[in-house]
């Protein structure tokens, strides 16, 4: 079959990313031809600033070299600018007369620096800051000239100025506004930044408007000696004059006052443009055969210059080119970071405040730290951080999720690590870490490895880093640190994962959308759900299948069928897999109680099967280690105790203290309450593990404050706390309600857990779910709505009833026999 012809005009990051995605999705669909106006293959434009600063080389920042194009069968024309599109004949023509036919065309023409329309703007030595050519020109100038003037105190201008200064030039930044980065920073933060940069040797002229660029001879007599410049044939820049009549010397002028989308080609072909090539949500122009992507595009009135949104566009565009037809680009929220080594600044959203907003401020000018959080209607709407940007990613996430911050308002300024008490935070400044320092404690990944992977492999997202280095892919507690490292390398071009996260790579639907579809359309199996929701993969992956299985079972108990093959091995084998492939066995001990019979049977099993290790767990139970898989059913039969579900996303342990039965301080019978709770909720599957505890008095020996549901007995009844967590990040449970009777404890805790089971995302602990929906919502559902609470409790009881003990089934009824048999040949 004849392949279709795909032609791309432009050879930059957004365009090539689109091709990569197309090749991944539909490798055989197109013959691809690329025209690039630059003589280079695809490089990482974001990292031009570090190249200018001498921290990296051009070689370091290549993303796709010429070999890549050849290996993927792409015809690459470098140094050839396309000047005409014949839409009727579907042919593009380059400057040199060469041409290419297309069935689909991608315009990825990028943008060019805006050059101020002032006299002298065409003198030699007046340049923009856009490509390798500009960087080469700047580096060359820094070798033979002294005075550099950067016009424009925005991100790009400051990065250029910093680079030129490091190259030994005397640099003045000219800016028209009252303060630097006025689109990213408020005045206070900008002043701190300015001072910091002045300490590095940069000079600033604010509130100055350029009137003309002056050639060398026109400069006043007291300008610096010109000596060796006499042999330069064309007129070179010699100075800059401002509207107030003042002048400064300049041997190099860098214009960094903004960018203009390159639309001339599209316009000449009659494609609708309006400050960019206008595209719809599938990145198509007004000619449906022609797509446009990158900085040349106007999408819903916005032109983006940061890489994260451009890559999102690339994904959508490729999806449609691959004829899959799912996915829309609906715009992006962006945040800002400056790529100047040693300077930390971050801003996002409405950081100026004003109107009905409230500000929380932390200002330490001597220490060089300034933080401003802007809040409206109990939501974070803007953040501006200077000097300490550790929590930038976290604030940005709060901002985009529009999360209610009333509950954490008093801690908000102090960052994420203060919201919980402690945790594996380690270091709070990624930039200050040395390359050997460990970032990911689970997988032993140090900072240098991550930095190297980001630079060499051209990574842009947290997901990329997880895949390539394994950092942040296990417990996730170093995610913030990895995000900081990404941000410090990619600068403003890094944006954390989108707010509405899809369930996994197999679909664009969110957890919530999938749950809603299962409920509303009564989907009862994983294949039906995947078909209905148009999954991209034939049978999902190890991330989505367990989630779907849980959603189906929790939404339609007794109707949806459990799919063991979609469960993680622990839930399939009903034991915990260990590093050597053996398993561990934890029998249930109601409320932490046991008896001599059980202990004797445990001892007998340990002897008979030569159990190498017996351990008392933190959850008041006993764990037998080193069990061979084929022995599990026999051991369960001989133990004759129920499963402790220590391996499952289900009710684990109910920890208790001894309570009134023996304790002289006890006010309630906590042990019995624990046993009752455990018997009531035993066999309850959940989005993640669920741990409970009951203490008999406020001394709280059962540590109820760090459990999903913690119950504390007081003289007049029971206090119920929810959303505690003692794991990766310690979270103290919040007070939910005080009740009088044990029946009420069961009903309120059960209703809380049932609503969590029905509404949380798979792998959310209770605390994560509460953080998202807010404690007020939980209270409304569990406390204010009596009918709703009773109904939720009934639904939980219905879901659990008739659920069999998994060990008994396998030990006595031969369920899933194949799981435990090895075939000998």
């Amino acid at each position: 079959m004849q392949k279709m012809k795909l032609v791309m005009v432009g050879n930059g990051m957004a365009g090539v990313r689109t091709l990569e995605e197309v090749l991944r999705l539909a490798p055989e669909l197109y013959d691809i031809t690329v025209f690039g106006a630059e003589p280079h293959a695809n490089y990482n434009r974001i990292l031009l600033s570090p190249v200018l600063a001498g921290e990296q080389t051009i070689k370091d920042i290549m993303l796709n070299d010429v070999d890549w194009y050849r290996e993927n069968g792409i015809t690459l024309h470098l140094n050839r600018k396309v000047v005409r599109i014949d839409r009727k004949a579907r042919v593009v023509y380059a400057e040199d007369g060469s041409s290419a036919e297309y069935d689909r065309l991608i315009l990825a023409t990028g943008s060019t620096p805006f050059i101020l329309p002032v006299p002298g703007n065409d003198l030699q030595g007046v340049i923009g800051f856009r490509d390798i050519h500009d960087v080469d020109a700047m580096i060359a100038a820094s070798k033979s000239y002294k005075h550099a003037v950067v016009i424009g105190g925005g991100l790009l201008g400051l990065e250029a100025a910093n680079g030129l200064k490091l190259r030994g030039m005397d640099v003045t930044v000219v800016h028209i506004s009252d303060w630097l980065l006025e689109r990213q920073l408020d005045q206070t933060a900008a002043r701190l930044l300015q001072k910091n940069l002045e300490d590095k040797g940069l000079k600033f002229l604010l509130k100055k408007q350029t009137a003309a660029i002056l050639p060398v001879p026109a400069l006043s007599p007291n300008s610096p000696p010109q000596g060796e410049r006499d042999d330069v044939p064309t007129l070179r820049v010699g100075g800059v004059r401002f509207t107030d009549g003042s002048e400064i010397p300049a041997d190099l002028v860098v214009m960094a006052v903004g960018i203009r989308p390159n639309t001339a080609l599209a316009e000449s072909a009659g494609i609708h443009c309006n400050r960019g090539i206008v595209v719809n949500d599938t990145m198509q122009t007004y000619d449906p055969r022609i797509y446009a992507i990158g900085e040349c595009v106007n999408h819903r009135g916005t032109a983006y210059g940061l890489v994260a949104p451009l890559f999102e566009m690339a994904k959508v565009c490729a999806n449609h080119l691959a004829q899959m037809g799912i996915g829309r680009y609906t715009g992006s929220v962006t945040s800002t970071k400056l790529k100047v080594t040693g300077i930390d600044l971050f801003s996002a959203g409405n950081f100026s405040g004003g109107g009905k907003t409230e500000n929380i401020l932390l200002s330490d000018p001597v220490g060089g730290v300034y933080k401003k959080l802007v809040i409206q209607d109990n939501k974070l709407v803007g953040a501006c951080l200077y000097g300490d940007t550790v929590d930038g990613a976290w604030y940005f996430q709060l901002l985009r999720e529009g999360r209610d911050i009333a509950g954490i308002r008093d801690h908000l300024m102090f960052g994420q690590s203060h919201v919980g008490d402690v945790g594996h935070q380690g270091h709070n400044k990624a930039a200050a870490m040395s390359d050997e320092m460990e970032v990911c404690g689970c997988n032993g990944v140090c900072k240098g490895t991550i930095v190297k992977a980001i630079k060499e492999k051209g990574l842009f997202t947290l997901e990329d880093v997880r895949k390539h280095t394994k950092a942040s892919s296990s417990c996730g507690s170093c995610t913030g640190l990895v995000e900081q490292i990404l941000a410090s390398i990619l600068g403003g071009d890094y944006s954390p994962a989108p707010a509405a996260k899809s369930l996994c790579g197999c679909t664009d639907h969110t957890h919530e959308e999938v749950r809603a579809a299962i409920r509303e359309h009564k989907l009862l199996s994983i294949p039906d759900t995947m078909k209905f929701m148009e999954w991209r993969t034939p049978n999902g992956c190890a991330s989505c299948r367990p989630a779907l299985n849980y959603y189906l079972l929790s939404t339609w108990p007794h109707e949806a069928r459990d799919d063991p093959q979609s469960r993680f091995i622990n839930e399939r084998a009903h034991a915990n897999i260990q590093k050597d492939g053996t398993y561990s066995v934890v029998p249930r001990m109601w409320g932490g109680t046991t008896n001599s019979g059980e202990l004797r049977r445990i001892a007998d099993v340990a002897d008979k099967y030569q159990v190498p290790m017996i351990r008392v767990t933190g959850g008041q139970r006993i764990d037998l280690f080193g069990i061979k898989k084929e022995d599990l059913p026999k051991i369960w039969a001989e133990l004759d105790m129920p499963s402790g579900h220590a391996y499952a996303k289900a009710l684990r342990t109910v920890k208790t203290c001894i309570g009134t039965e023996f304790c002289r301080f006890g006010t309630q019978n906590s042990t019995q309450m624990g046993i009752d709770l455990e018997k009531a909720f035993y066999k309850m599957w959940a989005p993640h593990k669920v741990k409970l505890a009951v203490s008999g008095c406020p001394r709280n020996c059962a540590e109820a404050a760090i459990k999903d549901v913690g119950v504390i007995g007081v003289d007049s009844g029971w206090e119920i706390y929810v959303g505690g967590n003692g794991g990766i990040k310690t979270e103290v449970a919040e007070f939910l309600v005080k009740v009088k009777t044990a029946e009420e404890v069961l009903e309120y805790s059960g209703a809380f857990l049932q609503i969590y089971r029905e509404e949380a995302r798979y792998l959310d602990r209770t605390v994560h779910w509460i953080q998202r929906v807010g404690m007020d919502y939980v209270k409304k559902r569990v406390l204010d709505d009596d009918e709703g609470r009773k109904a939720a409790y009934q639904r939980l009881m219905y879901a659990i009833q008739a659920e069999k003990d998994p060990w008994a089934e396998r030990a006595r009824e031969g369920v899933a026999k194949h799981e435990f048999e090895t075939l000998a040949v």
Partner: protein
Amino acid sequence: MSNWIKVVPLNEIPKLGARVVRHNGRDIAVFRNDGDGVFAMNDKCPHKGGPLSQGIVSGNSVTCPMHGMNISLADGKAVAPDEGCVGTYPVKVEAGVVYLQIM
């Protein structure tokens, strides 16, 4: 030379699942995809030696239960960007029975 060894009826390997075959003290994982496709390889992840047979099978790859490395069932190679590979064995289904060729 026909050294095919009869292993197990196909219907005793669950779809999207695996069985472990023990041969001379070595474990071989025999996988089945969502149809009748079967694949065999050493039951040992190239990452840290995890038992691949215990992983979740999807499409034509398996995810190791230890640290989530994805291994392609067809050739035993780690799915990019991971690196590594597992030794595979010829395997066939005849009259509903799975046969394995072990050198």
